[in-house]
């Protein structure tokens, strides 16, 4: 089948898509957006998290046909328009929250979504929001630091931080 959708603001189409393919497979193998990662492919690890019409989802659990005419935003779409790192991306780099980095794209999307909803989450809020994203390298401490840093910068940017 042919599917057409929007990925990071640009229209894309994929031909000869087999009905059983996931959105993750289409993004990674057909439309050249391999940033979303394939760690468990059954919705347990969160590495493949993308926005679908503004809601974070595990793209491995979305059938390709379900995204027809919809909007997908992946980790590749989190950077600023001028190519600079987005706020959450920069915070992860600065806090040392990236080690092997395989979980990072999913964590970035989920963190971005969390801070969209609540720009000053408590530690328990952060842990709850990110509990669907496994990381095997960092012990999560530096991920907590990164989210706190992103939150502080976001609030400062809005003028109700420092």
């Amino acid at each position, binding site marked *: 089948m042919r599917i057409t959708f929007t990925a990071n603001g640009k229209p894309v189409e994929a031909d000869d898509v087999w009905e059983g393919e996931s959105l993750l497979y289409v993004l990674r193998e057909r439309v050249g957006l391999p940033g979303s990662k394939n760690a468990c492919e059954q919705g347990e690890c969160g590495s493949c998290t993308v926005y679908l019409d503004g809601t974070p989802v595990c793209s491995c659990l979305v059938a390709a046909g379900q995204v027809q005419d919809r909007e997908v935003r992946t980790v590749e779409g989190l950077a600023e328009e001028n190519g600079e790192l987005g706020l959450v991306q920069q915070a992860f780099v600065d806090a040392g929250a990236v080690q092997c980095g395989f979980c990072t794209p999913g964590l970035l999307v989920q963190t971005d979504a969390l801070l969209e909803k609540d720009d000053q989450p408590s530690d328990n809020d952060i842990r709850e929001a990110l509990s669907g994203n*496994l990381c095997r390298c960092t012990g999560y401490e530096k991920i907590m630091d990164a989210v706190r840093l992103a939150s502080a910068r976001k609030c400062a940017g809005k003028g109700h931080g420092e």
Partner: protein
Amino acid sequence: MSTRTIAGQKNLQNINQASADGIGGSPLRPDGTLKVKGEFAYSSDMWHEDMLWGMALRSPHPRANILSVDISEALKLPGVYAVLTHQDIPGSKFYGLEIKDQPALAIDKVRYHGEPIALVAADHPETARRAVKKIKVEYEVLTPIVTEEQCLDPETHGYVHEPHEFKSHGYGNICHEQKLVSGLGVTDEVRALADVIVTGEYEVGMQDQAFLGPESGLAVPAEDGGIDLYIATQWLHVDREQMAPVLGLPEEKVRLTLAGVGGAFGGREDISMQIHACLLAQHTGKPVKIVYARDESFFGHVHRHPAKMRYEHGATRDGKLVFADCRIVLDGGAYASASPAVVGNAASLGHGPYVIPNVKMHAIALYSNNPSCGAMRGFGAVQAAFGYESQMDKLAAELGMDPVELRQLNAMAEGDHMPTGQRIDSPAPVAELLQRVKDMPLPPPLDLENLDIRAVPGALSNTSHGEGIVRGVGYSVGIKNVGFSEGFDDYSTARVRLEVIGGEPVAMVHTAMAEVGQGGVTVHAQIARTELGVEQVTIHPANTEVGSAGSTSASRQTYMTGGAVKLAAEAVKLALITKGRRRYGWTQNDIDLVGGKVVSEADGVLVAMVDLLGDEAIDLTREHHHRPTQPFDKETGQGFGHVQYTFCANRAVVDVDVELGLVKVVELTAVQDVGKALNPLSVVGQIQGGCTQALGLAVMEEIIVKDGKVRNASFTDYLIPTILDTPPIPVEILELPDPNAPYGLRGVGEAPTVSATPSIVAAIRQATGIALNRIPVRPEHLTGTL
């Protein structure tokens, strides 16, 4: 134009300031930006026009004879390009890290659940999956040999490998064994010297590395008949060494380039899909990509050895250890992998960081029809630490002593001897680490008045509102060796090139080191900056065009490859200064490279590096070998076996819901001696990550194997800690330099995984009063409903 300065001009103040991006600083990862943009190419992201997808058929039985394999139906499926069995292998059919006992594809029999039997290459992963299902295999299913008793009685239960196979390395179903005796050993006379004796039997379940990036890579056939493989691995050269004979190619025609690695933790030390992808590429003449699904990853790599241990410790009434007697049985599964070295570690480190006058040890690894086990972070020291640290707590309770004081009373220090007879010739601050971890502030008690449900055991499941929750605190300390041991000539190679690019001096570092997430690439750049006094450093992609870097394991890469980068950079620096001496006739003895300039303490800036270098590049390669070690004597375990030792102490605070058997680790504190922190940010990250894997082993992680069959090969059923399961991990580091190591550093990555598990179990025991002798601790162990 030369920028030689007037003699006596002392303008070194600015350029002498150590670069914040040199060693001891925490510059950011060079690959970090790519990784957060989603642009970093991991092995599963490899892509080639016209590529095929490879997939393996795996055995559903742990032990069976293969009567026939029929590939005809699979071959007929449109889109299928090749179906291969062992008969299609052009070269040697066996490979292995230490013993070449593993067939690349099963021959006549299968020895574990998930053993690969045949391979398919197809134009779509789904086509490959369907083709795999069409391969017909006729089995004669045999009763698997899975328990210690069965393994040790091969006359009754059979052999995993025929007795004549691999005889030089073991016998029967014993893959490897190591004994150790020191002092008077453990006899009735020695036992009589102790006022108190405690014994315990302990069990460790099978843990998985569970790296997130699945085994994957792309094999591309080359015009010269060779093959290029883009691969996630821990050691490019040892992969090639094992692959080339199977592929029937000389090593130089098997070229490996490291693709992005999504974690490793020991699980990528062995070959997984490397040979399979190359065989399929050879047969089809097309690029072949293999990407394991998570279940295949659980089948496709070796795990941490499950262990059964028996410990007996004797002490005087005032707490001085008199003797320790220990037996450690590791289940190595169907193939040897790294089992011999794991046994050596368990035996030589199995008594912990304590001075014990009389010691006896017997460690063995079995061949069985369980999944193969090999390297995982902590490598034999993890299992033993659970045993000896549990014993320390038991002994302290028996003596009515504080468990930390008992440990400190017996703690080894610099100048003491290991049970192997090896003198500890660098700092061993075991008692100090314990003191520091004990002195760190405790977390506040659970606030029942203002309870956030997410802070209690069971977290989001709304299981409790604080009732039935008891807090406990536990301590532990562990010992781990760094680097490869027992006489192995471990080395690493680095190439450093210095040249002028865009008017700036730029250093390039080229090694074959596998960056698996640990941050070696950051540290290499820091070393080059420090030694060469430049800011710009580029890291060349790791590949087999440069000499071996050895494995990214055994906490050895900063020591070994970092050491090689230091040697190569020093050689480049010497060459540059020599060039300057020839050109300008410098006679000073204090010439150094700082801030892009050649300087002398006495005379200030002598020349800018760019002017001295001109168009010339200095490009030098050096090898770093650590000091030689010796094999352990097979019967007595004596020998200078290890390069370096590293120590970590932990304190765990847990809340236990005693009614539901749920545990929440509230805080896990670590204090570790790292010799010299080359990059403190990375060091802390490694320690926190290591502690979290230890937490997983303590309370949740286990591959369930029943009658040889794996029951939980998924992230749904094999649980690793989430951010909700993982507490704050305060870390303190000590920097007591090892005089034998580059910059005085100590390997970092494994020690916390060795030491942290027992502290958590100790804390649960303290909270519940239940004697726990098996990990992971499960709710049923705590509720008595087992």
